[in-house]
Structure formats: structure tokens, C-alpha cells
């Protein structure tokens, strides 16, 4: 499992960062920064799904 994160769509709601700080960091302006560009470890798959399901701007997707 990998994550596609679209910085252009991100509006800085910070929902992903709150739900999964292991996967997303946040920059000094409050925009999300994807920490894991490659394969998401299995133990974080549920959290990755939460990030997708709670992004109000549809900026996060799972790429199998």
C-alpha cells in the first residue's frame, strides 16, 4: 500500500496529521507533508485509511 497525497488540493485542515502523525507531518504554514513516500508498513494501513476517509478536500488516496 502507498499513499498519494495531492498538495494542490490540501487546504491545511490537518486531519491527517492528527490521526496519523506517523504518516503525515505538517509544515510551518499548516500544510500536510507526507512522511512515507514508499510502501506503508502493514501496521499503519488502518491509519492510512483513516487519513483518506477524513480528508475534507479529497487530497489523499490509497494507491495499491
Amino acid at each position, binding site marked *: 500500500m502507498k499513499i498519494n497525497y495531492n498538495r494542490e488540493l490540501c*487546504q*491545511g*485542515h*490537518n*486531519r491527517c*496529521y*492528527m*490521526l496519523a502523525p506517523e504518516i503525515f507531518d*505538517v*509544515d*510551518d*504554514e*499548516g500544510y500536510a507533508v507526507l512522511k512515507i513516500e514508499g510502501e506503508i508498513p502493514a501496521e499503519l494501513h488502518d491509519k492510512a485509511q*483513516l487519513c483518506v*476517509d*477524513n*480528508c*475534507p*478536500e*479529497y487530497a489523499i488516496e490509497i494507491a495499491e
Partner: protein
Amino acid sequence: MDAKKAPVEDWTTDFDHTHPDYAANAHQIWDDLREECPIAHSDRFGGMWMPTRHEDIAAIAANKDGLYTSRGVVVSEVRPDIPAPIGYAPPITSDPPFHAPARKLLLGPFAPRKVQALEPFTREYCHSLVDAALETSNEQGWFDAAIGYSQNIPVKVIAQMLGLPAEDGPVFRRFIHNIIENPVQREIPEEETVEWYFDQQIAKRKANPKPPGEGDLIDHLLNVEIFGEALAPEHVRGTVVLLLVAGIDTTWSSIGSAIWHLAQHPNDLARFRDDPEVRPFAVEEFLRAYAPVTMARMVAEDHELQGCPMKKDDWLLLPFPAGNRDPEAFEDADKFVIDRQKNRHGAFGLGIHRCLGSNLARMELSVALDVFVDRIRDFSLVDPANVRFSTGQIRGPRELPVSVKTNV
């Protein structure tokens, strides 16, 4: 007292978001409109529209074709006279291309790590409010969780950020009532206007300038530049008004609505109290189910939207709280699901105008509920009929008498 509103006969053709009936029945009104209408119209306030489906609200907020302007964001009888793209209170009243650079100036101070630093201060203040509330409760058997708790928290925090005296809280709440809750034309002495208040505050800081990076948020605005120049005086003042007004009754409403819900749902209260892992999800569900803020736009050019003839300068309400309750967008949209796992709510708006203070608001809401529930443990409404909700674009309890149960 403000003038009595004419009764609303038909919410599809004559809605009025400032009417007490709307305050009392908003959820039902949105549900009915969403099924029957779904874009309501009214001739009040010189003509306004209100979509109620999440998809329509999101599309208007996205504003891909530039058909809408943020020049006016609070519906009033008079159209705002400060032109786009800057508007009265940047960046909320700004359109592209001015919007992004004006917003960028403020993103840093409201980013998560900056906001996190205010948490201990907020927590300590919430504890002091609970101390006082419990004392009142011991004396009279109840206390008002809006007046004695929720309304004070955002005032204290934003006053701290803006470097304003917290004891001016009642003054700030009067500004807010006049600007947002009941924006009718009134004759106000100049020294009582929000503009006068902040002109004094700004003048004080200009007389004693701080180096960049020091001082409060007003100092920050006096130090930064846009397009290589210092901000215009009206820009500084408008932004400061925005930061004060937008940060107070919104968060106050959110905290109050959450307490109102918990006071009536003992199972949710017990779960929130006893399960720390559910709290972050519960906070987002409070935000979804009881989102306080309905934004507004103005129509920038004549066009038709789903058969509705939108005319330039018509108001357009964006009821994100109604979108949050749209069954097309949320499973069990009308139910409060304390551990909701899929929750793309738009409580803080959607698109480029996402609430600048959302991290601050979320921190305040979380801390306020933590302290309230951890300290008070069990509580209920004195009488549901004694709860009074605000009118206008910000929805939340303004009077919320609760009684403490001491057996937990």
C-alpha cells in the same frame, strides 16, 4: 431589544437565518429544504440564496468559475462597499489574487505547533472556570455552561494572541453581536465601534514598535509586508477585527453545543469520560453534527444554478452545518456517532477559505471538553426549554443551564 422579525411562512421562498424559529429548528429546516428544494431563496436582506446539499455547498466554496465573491461574508441589509479582491477584513473577504498572499501572512501563527504552545494556558484557564462554576453550582444548584464556561474560553485565548486585555471580553461580545449575530443598521457612538477600538490598539503599538518575531499578532501584522510593502492601515485593522470576531462566538458555540449534547446523552457522556481514545473522534463528530458556522458569499455575475436565477450582488449563504448533515455525503447523517470513522466534515469550510483558526478552535474545543468532563464527570440540562440558541450565521447555545450530578 432588536426589531421583531416578520414570521416566515415558507422556508423555501422566504427563509430568514436571523429568525428565532430558524435558531430553534435549523436541523429540521435544512433536512426539509434538502429534500424538497434544495436551494432556498428569500427576498429578505435584499435577496439571498441558500443551498443545502453538501455537493452544492462544496462546489460553490470551490468557486471554479469565479461566479462568487467573498467581498461579503456576513449577510446584512447593506452590501459591503469595500471592493474585491481585498474587502473589509482580509483574507476572509478577499478573492484571488489578493487572497493567497494575505492569508499566507497568517498561516504561520495559526499552524498546529504554534497553537499547541497555547494549550497549557488554555487548560489552566478552563480549570479556573470550572472552579468558579462548581462554586456557583454549590450555591444555587446549577450553573450556566455557556455564560460561565464556553463563552469565556475563546475570548481569553484570542485576547492573549492579540495582546488585548481579557477583561474587555464583554466589549468583544458586543462587537460580535452587532457584526454577526444581528447585523442590522444601528446608530453607534464612534467610541463604541470595533474600528475605533482597534485604531487605538494599533496606534499604541505603532508608538512602541516591536522587532519582527516579537510582540503579539497585531505587532506581527505591523511588521509583515505584502507585495513588498507594509500592509495598508485598513488591511491591518480589518484583519484584526476578523481574528477577534471569527475566533470567539464560533468556538464558543462549538464548545457549548458539545456540552449541550453530552448533557442530554448519558451514554455518549460516559463513553467520552471513560475512553480517552474516542475523544479525538468525538471532537470531530461534535464539529460535524453541530458545526456552528454558516459562511456567505455574494454572486459576482448573473448566472443560473440548477434553475435558480442568481443575480449579481445576491447573497448566498453557505450552510456547512447543513452539508454536514446531508445523507448523500454522510452515513447516518442525522445521528451523532461518537466514534465516526469516516468524517470529511466541512465544519471549518472547504476550499481556499478553510478556517484559518481551525487548529486553534480544535485545540480549544478539545481542552474545554477534557477539563469540563474530567472535572464535572456527570451533568444534565436543568430544563431543555431554558436553553437558548443564537440567531444568524453562527449557531450555538447562548444560555445553557446545567446541573451537576455528584454520584459519579
